[in-house]
């Protein structure tokens, strides 16, 4: 936190403080693509013969100078940054002129990630990202450490976070899910196939129309548009595959671990009980295969990163997903929770898809379902519900309907029982308030039942 004490060593009689520094190769890895480009241009300038016969000195001096500046800045950052582990606290000091000191209470940690972007991975370096509840900016990023050091730091942080103790070794893990390459590629391609295909058709349509009317310019523009959209789609597919490659979910005493990535890899660890809400989503094009994806709300992941970091499983069989989600939430059987539809008159407001809407609850979780073509099931434990809302617009009020919203931390899961009978909505709200109170009183940690096995 800025403004708190800046230097402060260990207080008398307190637990011993361990001090670490960033890896000396950090400046080069931090420079990443920009640095690579600068160096490349400089080298080109050196190699090429200018008009005078010698190397192109202006080019070499400008770009070489910039490269040196980037590296020097990086070195200063490394020199003035240090992090300290003390009991249940992590402290990061940095800043050359304007000193800054951040303290994090480890029992508040929501997730610990080890990230290896390509530029760092080349040098065997990794970033440790500690996410706390609050905005995404509140996350602490330690860039960069040697990979083994990063991994042991993660284990240590998670151990301290759970109150197990200091210097805990990496907890043993058990694989729950691995996503086969073929299925990942197939699912990503199928997910891309949707309304985007219509965009792809615009170009050829223009080209054909242009050609038949003798407008060569129109035809040219049509082809250009086609190429442009094709490049965009290929790029999007590549990004998703690069991010989700080798997707593995494992279970260990310090939490759920998610590992993935082709060129840049990432390992997330979410300690037990940090998942605020979960959804199971099935895009329309996946329905013939029975595939679904699972996404989650974790405090501090924020909305921007929600599409990526919030992925718990990119593609999996529906039955297995339901069992796994039930297990993650502490032994809930989703099949046992009866869901009820909105009353028939809701068809005025949600013409066809009112039939797909449904909501229900047991003593642990609230479940809501929606979507006629692409289907989504939202699940939020009573214990994690932040606040409850009833909302009714003019049309809903005229029909005697109301929607009940269950607020969770920012993320992909937005649970709501849509278009219920107004009286029922009020009863539902009151019962949820009651269930939430009961659940908070006897907070039960999740994940004590053995995990389901992939079949």
């Amino acid at each position, binding site marked *: 936190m800025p403004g708190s004490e800046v230097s402060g060593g260990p207080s008398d009689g307190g637990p011993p403080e361990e001090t670490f520094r960033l890896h000396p190769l950090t400046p080069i890895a931090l420079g990443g693509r920009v640095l690579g480009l600068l160096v490349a241009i400089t080298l080109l300038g050196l190699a090429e013969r200018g008009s005078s016969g010698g190397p192109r000195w202006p080019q070499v001096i400008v770009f070489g100078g910039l490269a040196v500046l980037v590296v020097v800045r990086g070195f200063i950052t490394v020199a003035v940054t240090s992090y300290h582990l003390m009991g249940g606290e992590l402290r990061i000091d940095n800043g050359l002129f304007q000193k800054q000191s951040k303290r994090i209470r480890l029992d508040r940690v929501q997730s610990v990630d080890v990230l290896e972007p390509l530029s760092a991975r080349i040098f065997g370096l990794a970033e440790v990202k500690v996410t706390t509840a609050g905005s995404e900016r509140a996350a602490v990023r330690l860039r960069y450490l040697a990979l083994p050091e990063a991994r042991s730091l993660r284990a240590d942080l998670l151990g301290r976070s759970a109150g197990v103790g200091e210097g805990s070794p990496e907890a043993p893990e058990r694989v729950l899910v691995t996503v086969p390459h073929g299925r990942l590629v197939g699912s990503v391609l199928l997910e891309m196939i949707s309304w985007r295909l219509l965009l792809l058709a615009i170009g050829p349509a223009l080209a054909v129309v242009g050609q038949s009317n003798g407008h060569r310019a129109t035809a040219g523009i049509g082809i250009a548009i086609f190429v442009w959209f094709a490049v965009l789609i290929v790029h999007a597919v590549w990004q998703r595959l690069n991010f989700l490659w080798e997707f593995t979910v494992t279970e260990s005493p310090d939490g759920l671990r998610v590992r993935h990535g082709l060129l840049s890899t990432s390992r997330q660890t979410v300690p037990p009980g940090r998942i605020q809400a979960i959804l199971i989503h099935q895009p329309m094009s996946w329905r013939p295969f029975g595939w679904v994806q699972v996404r989650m709300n974790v405090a501090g992941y924020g*909305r921007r990163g929600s599409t990526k970091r919030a992925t718990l499983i990119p593609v999996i069989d529906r039955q297995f997903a339901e069992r796994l989600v039930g297990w993650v939430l502490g032994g809930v059987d989703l099949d046992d929770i009866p869901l009820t539809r909105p009353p028939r008159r809701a068809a005025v407001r949600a013409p066809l898809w009112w039939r797909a809407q449904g909501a229900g609850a047991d003593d642990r979780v609230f479940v809501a379902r929606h979507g006629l073509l692409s289907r989504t099931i939202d699940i939020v434990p009573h214990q994690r519900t932040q*606040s409850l*809302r009833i*909302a009714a617009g*003019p049309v809903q009020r005229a029909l005697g309907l109301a929607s009940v919203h269950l*607020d*969770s931390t920012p993320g992909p899961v937005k649970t709501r029982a849509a278009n219920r009978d107004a009286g029922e909505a009020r009863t539902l709200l009151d019962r949820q308030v009651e269930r*939430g109170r009961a659940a*908070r009183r006897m907070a039960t940690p999740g994940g004590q039942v053995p995990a389901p096995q992939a079949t």
Partner: protein
Amino acid sequence: MRRALVAASVIPLAAVALGLAAASRLAGLIAGIAAVLVLVWAWSAVGRNFRSWGYVERADDLMVTHGAMFRKLTVVPYGRMQLVDVKAGPIERAFGLVNVKLHTAAATTDAQVRGLSPADAGSLRDRLTALGEAHSAGL
């Protein structure tokens, strides 16, 4: 306060009506009637909206309701409150009004008590903060 704003909007409406009246009698008459109707509707809508605001401090949670057209009812358990915000904009300050807003870890929580007197707002905030500490349940 909103009624005052509605009253203030009479002036441009009247100006428009007068302008039209200068152009033609009939247009001026129609515009005048329309303006009066809009004003009457706005006046009553503001009244309904004003009456729709309410809050109840219950044993374990705060219940806030508002909205005449889009009706909303929010329940925030005291244990879930992350911070209580007391705010007043320039126009509200001129009328001596204050808003109290509750924040939870969810960004979608929409719990606001508007139009309190500063003394009421202060005491509500203090009570809520105390209750929040007593019930604190983490995330």
